């Protein structure tokens, strides 16, 4: 019991140390988000009126963020594969051809979310930044961010929630130089699930934003 507890704490601690490094280049962007990253800086906004405390929402500070993924057997499905090294490209090596290369990070176009949250999980920052820098480098490039929700909760609320997920991704892309006219957002709610199951695994796959380039 104690050992397990200690290990969890360790995981959280490690992530907390790594995160600021990953996030350092986009600290401003992250702070201006509507909701904060779980386990990073769960604070209140609007002078305490609107308290968005991602961690306490489902008791998953750490769990809802990065460490949940490591302790989850479905890990591989939701983590960008070359996230482990946190070398955020400065954009100079990004090419449009990369969009068509299955080994390039740019081929990964789905960002997953926590239940009833629109904040970006830290592990997706590199992926989002890479797409954003590509967009910044090629101003003619246009994309749609399509937000989705799982089946839990009410349908129309989920449309709004899924749109906010897309808006969260766009906001971070904006801090990396992507122009607002390059990015359109849409919330589909729970209307278009990728998987049909009524369980945690299916719900996780359905809570997502898909990046869709106009011509790629």
């Amino acid at each position, binding site marked *: 019991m104690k050992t397990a507890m200690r290990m969890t704490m360790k995981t959280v601690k490690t992530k907390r140390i790594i995160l600021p490094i990953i996030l350092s280049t986009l600290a401003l962007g992250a702070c201006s988000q*509507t909701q904060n990253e779980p386990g990073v800086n769960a604070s209140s*906004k*609007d002078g305490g*009126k*609107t*308290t*968005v*405390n991602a961690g306490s*929402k489902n008791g998953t500070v750490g769990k809802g963020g990065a460490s949940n993924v490591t302790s989850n057997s479905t890990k591989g499905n939701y983590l960008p594969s070359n996230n482990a090294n946190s070398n955020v490209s400065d954009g100079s090596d990004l090419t449009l051809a990369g969009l068509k290369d299955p080994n390039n990070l740019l081929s990964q176009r789905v960002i997953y979310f926590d239940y*009833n949250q629109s904040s970006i999980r830290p592990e997706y920052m590199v992926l989002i930044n890479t797409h954003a820098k590509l967009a910044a480098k090629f101003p003619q490039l246009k994309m749609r961010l399509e937000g989705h929700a799982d*089946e*839990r*909760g*009410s*349908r*129309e*609320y989920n*449309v*709004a*929630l899924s*749109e*906010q997920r897309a*808006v969260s991704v766009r906001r971070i892309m904006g801090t990396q130089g992507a122009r607002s006219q390059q990015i*359109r*957002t*849409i*919330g*589909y*709610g729970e*209307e*278009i699930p990728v998987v*049909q199951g*009524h369980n945690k695994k299916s719900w996780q796959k359905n809570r997502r934003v898909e990046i869709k380039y106009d011509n790629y």
Partner: protein
Amino acid sequence: MIFTTNMTVIRNNIKSISLLFIFLFSSSLHAELQLSISKSANDGIPIYIANIAATIPGGHNGIIEADLKRSGRFTIVDRAKIPNLAPFGGTLNASAYQGIADYIVRGKDDGNGGLSIELTSTSDNAKTNYQISANSNSRRPAHKAADQIYQKITQEKGAFDTRLAYVTVINNASSNRLFKLFVSDADGHNEQEIMSSREPITSPTWSPNGTELAYTSFELNRSGIYIQNIFSGAKRLISGRKGSNNAPSWSPDGSKLAVSLSFDGNPEIYTINVRSGALKRITNSSAIDTEPTWNGTNSIIFTSNRGGKPQLYRVSGSGGSAQRLTFGGKYNSAADVANKKMTFITGNRGAFHVAIKSLGGGSGRDMLSNGRMDETPTLAPNGTMVAYTTLRGGQNTLAVVSDNGKSKQFLRSALGDIRYPAWSPYLHR
């Protein structure tokens, strides 16, 4: 040939609009939802409905029985308990049946689809007679009869002669999805397709006169709020602004839609005048504000997560500060209001149930459902029945429950998942 015949009929008939409706949608005319009864009140007002000879399947009496049962306020007396009852027009000494039924209904089909109905109280032998004229929908006279019987006995208006709008999704598990907006009778019969799209259709809401639907459609690869006449099919775009155009709810006076729009970057409640298109902002928060529903002509109840989690709030129809209505539980949303009652979704240990509460005062609420994923409750116009969707056998199915929880029925579509039921107002035609 068939076309010509129909055109002649239409020209010769005053009720051409309703006939045209049937004519336009004749391909799906006989489609209906499959009913299964989960429970009926066994302590309701005992009522005996005599057989009414008719050419329609199940007979008029079958429709009246099913309607009264659905209200959760009546218990239908087994026909075998009163053998050899004198037919409509014959002498009836009702007091002889006092121990069996409180009321006896006898009736007669006039041969042209019209109905004569007689309601007799067994306590005092008092008789009330109703003449109900024929309708192009052969089941409606029986629904109208059930409304009359219901009103006479309970002193509240009946809501059986009403309709449901809902969305059905065909091939939900594949990328070949097809969304269809349907209207049916409130008992699931006479399903009529209103519109169809490869992209999602959501949130239908009825105009108070029952002739138009407003809904959200993603048919142009972005969301838009449309108004469509269910008889003519004529359709117009009401809001196609940047961001989401979502969750329309028609005001009781017919003049406005309350909607959730996010063109300024965040979903807020607005009203849109359906004639002029004039937009008025109702809420102003940095949170999600959506799912507006009218509570009378100048009050709107909506869902907001401004307190951190989705809860219901009330705001004046002209804007101003909002007042929180729900405190119990971490998730309360998707309200609908009729006759001073409010139904809504409430989260409970990871499941989502339908609840109902009085808006007249008191903080109590009753749970009406126990599914895992119950959604989009909608009240009959008299506030006595709630339609919602629930997962059954892996498929989203329509459920209708009485406000006292005593009657529950399921309506399954052979086509696929049912979503977004919307109960019509009282029908005027």
